[in-house]
């Protein structure tokens, strides 16, 4: 039998969801273990024995010097690195506050001294080159499963090339932007979540970041403006998950 690939899961600063989502694969996690050996995954195991990884999954933003060191370790010791989740690909919510780090620390902790070496939070892709970027807050767990299987079989994982809007049409969900006038970012958001928010009858909040290329944010902006949403509201909504567009 072929040697198993060595997998490392590295968590920078985040909510834990992108690592947890791997555990939510349930039985399918054991299918992955036919191809992979987990060398590093601190949420799940006390073992940490790797010095080389065939595949590294990195979640979270670089928010501290510790995060940056860990990211460099993951990059320098891995063949294929996946930036996993919107924190790693676009900065997500914690990357969206546009203030210098010291001002943020002062506002929240009452003190701008920085003994724990916090950095201005940025996505993984701003610091190192990545081999694949899989956004989503969180990403759909099937996506990471498929990507890891593809890599194990020597196939390059496929990037989605359609917006959330298309998934609504496939599911025949009622359009909440047109019918309910809800601020829905589905037309310009990178698909792959199977339109989770619209399934709840609510507008897409754009947690997977903008679809590069074909989507038309200017037209989305005009539509929301026509529906009575003010400038500040729309701009903040656009930037909530994706201030750092790759």
């Amino acid at each position, binding site marked *: 039998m072929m040697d198993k690939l060595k997998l490392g899961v590295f*968590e*920078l*600063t*985040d*909510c*834990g*969801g*992108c690592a*947890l*989502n791997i*555990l*939510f694969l*349930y*039985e399918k*996690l*054991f299918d992955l273990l036919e191809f992979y050996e*987990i060398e590093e995954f*601190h*949420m*799940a*195991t*006390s*073992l*940490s024995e790797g010095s080389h990884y065939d595949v590294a999954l990195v979640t979270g*933003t670089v*928010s*501290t010097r*510790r*995060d940056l060191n860990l990211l460099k370790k993951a990059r320098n010791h891995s063949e294929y690195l996946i930036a996993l989740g919107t924190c790693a690909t676009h900065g*997500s*919510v*914690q990357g969206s*506050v546009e*203030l210098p780090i010291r001002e*943020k*620390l002062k*506002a*929240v*902790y*009452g*003190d701008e001294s920085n*003994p*724990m070496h*916090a*950095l201005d*939070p940025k996505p993984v892709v701003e610091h190192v080159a990545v081999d694949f970027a899989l956004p989503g*807050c*969180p990403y759909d767990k099937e996506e990471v499963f498929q990507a890891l299987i593809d890599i194990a079989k020597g196939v390059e994982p496929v990037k989605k090339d359609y917006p959330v809007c298309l998934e609504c049409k496939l599911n025949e969900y009622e359009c909440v932007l047109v019918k309910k006038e809800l601020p829905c970012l589905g037309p310009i958001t990178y698909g792959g979540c199977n339109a*989770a*928010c619209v*399934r*709840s*009858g*609510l507008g897409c*909040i754009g*947690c997977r970041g903008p679809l590069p290329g074909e989507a038309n944010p200017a037209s989305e902006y005009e539509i929301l403006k026509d529906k009575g949403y003010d400038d500040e*509201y729309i701009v*903040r*909504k656009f930037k*909530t998950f994706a201030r750092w567009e790759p």
Partner: protein
Amino acid sequence: MIIELREFTRVEGNGKAEIVIEDGEVKDVRLKIVEGPRFFELLTLGRHYYDVPDLEARICAICYLSHSVASVLGIERAFGVEVPEEIALLRELGLIGELIESHALHLYLLVAPDVFGYPDAIRMATKHGELVKEGITIKAFGNRIRELIGGREIHGINVKPGGFGRYPTVEELEMIEKESEALLRLAKRAVRLFASLGPYGAQATHFVATDGYLWGEKLISDEEGSFHYTERIEERSLIYSFTKQSRYNGEAFLVGSLARLLLKSEMLTPTAGRLFEEHREKLATGYVSYNNLAQAIELVYALERANEIAKTLLDRGIEGENVPVEPGEGEGIGYVEAPRGVLVHHYRIDANGKVAYSNIITPTALNHVMMEASLLEEARRLHGKADDRAMVQRLEETVRAFDPCISCSVHIVRL
């Protein structure tokens, strides 16, 4: 001399401990949260109230629904909105789903490897596959409820001020009724397994919880009367950690499963109540390690209560009507029991319906002092007797007993 331990494993988030040794004695232990700050208070400042619960959910994946519900409660109270029983029961059902998901993850996948001496559940599965499978089955059921009520396994946006985006169907409620009954047998077995864990860590003497079992209007403790957090809990910044420490009337205290059982046993369901009585003496010693056993008893509670709620809703039928929300200037506090303890979301909202102030206090921050006290006791007990490896193992077990959620703990502070 300062011994810095490796970062904790099999806990949510990034943290570690430092042991301070002077003249050959353990002088102090510091619990350092090395997860970076996330600035949620700045993120929600000036945001329209309607979008806030979806953002707050992102504080934590394991307990996102607790954050959404606490946020919604804080906002509704600021506007004086009252919801009917149907909405209240569905929210409770969501919190129960989260409790099941989180406790099952913690007990079966993170703690059980300590019971059997494995580094993780995956390797444990080679000998104890059945147990790992049971844990995954229970966890998946909790997640299914989170998906139905919350909108997605992680970070759904279905819980809104005034109600829900989508209401569950009769078939979905019937599934919950059936499954909760079928899984009860497994949860009872978990109680027997986790009752075998001995006492370690410190003994808590003060306990704090919400006045309802999974949410409330106010907080209660082992002393007289109910209160708002501002009346008896004070927070202090730490220079060595991205978290604040809280004390109850100046003293260490415990929140979470053990605190809930000890303060609210009369609210338990029949089987869970009996199991609590059976183990009452042990639990009442307050050893923090018994939080694991308390979680197992709560799994039984959660499955029985999910069954009750599903039955009640099926009897009454689902109306699916949201309550209108009239935004206006106001202040409100939402209190929820996240799986690992009391969670507070406090908001002031301006006349335009935008957040003017927010303060979030999480269970892991509330337990911080108790965690350090427990680490100190264990380090003193083991210093000079155990090698480094055994020391790290036991200190990790001690922290793990609190089921800490470090992602949650790093943005607890007020503006």
